[in-house]
């Protein structure tokens, strides 16, 4: 068993980054995730593993620092919260276009604009539908516990390098700030420069005479070549969809009604399922773990068996669009959410389920 600790979600991310053998963290402070940079600065991982930690002048700079290090085949990451992630969208589009593996963490807060520092899930569209320009996708992981904050850092980098694609870990202020028991994985070594050259032949590590120069770019001015590159991306995204779609099902075997929720809302909905079962209601929970690729297939299959689904989100209803697309009208799909940093209680979700789905028309 790994080392047990009581940690904040944000701290778990920072510690997991060090233990994952990350080479560089570049970040800029923003609530509610500044503990990540603070933890790393006080932990001095450059003494533990040689990991670089640098406070950048802006989120624009930090995401571009990730671009530079990632293009060199190094494990690089940044973290921020919603307004900062908005600033990073240009960089994310370039990173996706140049196929640079890296990890970006969004500890989501309420918007739009400066919004609030309280938790929210209103960045689902930004995470899963692009955010930046162009036909690209981020692999998006949604942790629902402090344990997953740690585990998904490791998983995120595995996926990022497997597919040469940026990975977004989309948490929210609840998971970032709450404390839970975490079982930490053991320290992984950082790759040496020689190992990077051997594993990632595309990386800009300096051109030896034995190979052509490596170019990291998202530019091709010839339309047909740019189209071919886009088709290559689409083939990759299809492969990711087929191989990496992750979800969790709770009490779905006999369920007549389903809650669909991710992240903090899934934690809340889990309690709602328990309350509903105590009342004799056959309710289950579908928790998407990957927001992209979205678990459309299983939701479609479950839509054939149930009488309705309630999507619980701390937003005005964003993921629900993907649930509706997956179910194609086969069952009733409605939204329940709180906005602007308000966290719903399990009881109010149960009331919503009973009135909107079970008792509703």
């Amino acid at each position, binding site marked *: 068993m790994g080392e047990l600790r009581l940690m904040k979600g944000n701290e778990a991310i920072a510690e997991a980054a060090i233990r994952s053998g990350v*080479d*560089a963290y*570049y970040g800029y402070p923003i609530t509610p995730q500044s503990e990540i940079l603070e933890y790393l600065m006080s932990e001095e991982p450059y003494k533990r593993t040689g990991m*670089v930690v*640098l406070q*950048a*002048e*802006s989120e*624009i*700079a*930090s995401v*571009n*620092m*990730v*671009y*530079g*290090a*990632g*293009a*060199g085949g*190094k494990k*690089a990451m940044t973290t921020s919260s919603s307004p900062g992630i908005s600033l990073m969208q*240009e*960089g994310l589009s*370039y990173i996706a276009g*140049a196929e640079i593996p890296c990890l970006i963490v969004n500890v989501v807060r309420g918007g739009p604009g400066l919004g609030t520092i309280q938790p929210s899930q209103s960045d689902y569209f930004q995470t899963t539908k692009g955010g930046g320009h162009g036909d690209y996708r981020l692999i998006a992981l949604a942790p629902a516990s402090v344990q997953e904050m740690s585990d998904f850092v490791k998983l995120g980098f595995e996926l990022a390098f497997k597919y040469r694609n940026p990975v977004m870990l989309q948490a929210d202020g609840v998971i970032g700030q709450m404390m839970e028991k975490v079982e930490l994985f053991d320290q992984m070594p950082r790759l040496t*420069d020689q190992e990077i050259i051997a594993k990632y032949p595309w990386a*800009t*590590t*300096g*051109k*030896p*005479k034995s190979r052509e*120069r*490596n*170019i*990291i*770019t*998202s*530019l091709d001015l010839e339309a047909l070549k740019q189209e071919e590159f886009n088709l290559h991306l689409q083939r990759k995204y299809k492969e990711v969809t087929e191989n990496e779609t992750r979800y969790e099902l709770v009490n779905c075997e006999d369920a007549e009604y389903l809650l669909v929720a991710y992240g903090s809302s899934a934690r809340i909905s889990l309690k709602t399922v328990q309350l509903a079962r105590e009342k004799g209601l056959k309710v289950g929970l579908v928790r998407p773990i990957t927001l992209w690729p979205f678990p459309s297939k299983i939701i479609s299959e479950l839509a054939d068996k149930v009488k309705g689904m309630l999507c619980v989100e701390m937003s005005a209803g964003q993921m629900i669009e993907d649930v509706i697309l997956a179910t194609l009208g086969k069952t009733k799909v409605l939204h329940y959410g709180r906005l602007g940093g308000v966290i719903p209680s399990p009881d109010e979700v149960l009331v919503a389920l009973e009135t909107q789905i079970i008792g509703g028309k």
Partner: protein
Amino acid sequence: MEDVKIEDVIKIEDIIKQENLVFSKTKNLTDKTMSFCPGCGHGVAHRITMEVLEEMGISEDTIGIAPVGCSVLAYEFMNIDMQQAAHGRAPAVATGLKRVYPDKYVFTYQGDGDLAAIGTGETIHACNRGENIVIIFVNNGIYGMTGGQMAPTTLAGMKTSTSPYGRDVETMGAPLKITEVVALLPGTCYVTRQSVHTPGNVRKAKKAIRKAFENQKAKKGLSFIEIVSNCNSGWKMTPVDSNKWMEENMFPFYPLGDIKDEFKLLQK
């Protein structure tokens, strides 16, 4: 024998032999025809940068970063590992790379719109942190790539497609001497302004670039080289006329020479 003229016995074919070679294109440039307009200083700036890497024997350990502007296609011509960056972001990209590869050589190659307008923040902060990189800044006072719009360094009164009646400093601001600004920052080790329009200036500029990479080798911090250059297409002149115009109009405002060396501002 005494009466034979040298010219009579030396044929061109006698001269054009490998053993007589005194100048040829560096192998650090690809064979691709450069996309720059005829007479553009970018080509020379590219070449002398690549020559310096070859002469220092560091080509295999150098990664170049070229962002958006006429410099965007640098990776087509520079035969080393290259990264293309978003507009203005090269100093941040270079920072990210250099921090994880402290023993490699990293340089950015940026234009005036890129470095002194959209990327001012990244430029100032990379310089202020004293990142151990080289910044090569080509200043031609105009946005060449997009068709000759006003740049932060466009001279007062200078006509461009977005200042068709001349740059009015009352409403459009004064031209920005970003090089003098970065010279004031503690992280910059060496700051100089050069040009590449005459053989003598090319040789001086190349020495400056060499010095910049030697500074990086010695881990001294950031070296910043401005190259005042022409944009004959944007300025709507012949290449030869544009260089003359540059001498008469750009140099008085952007005087050539070292501004800072070994972390000390030079009094002139």
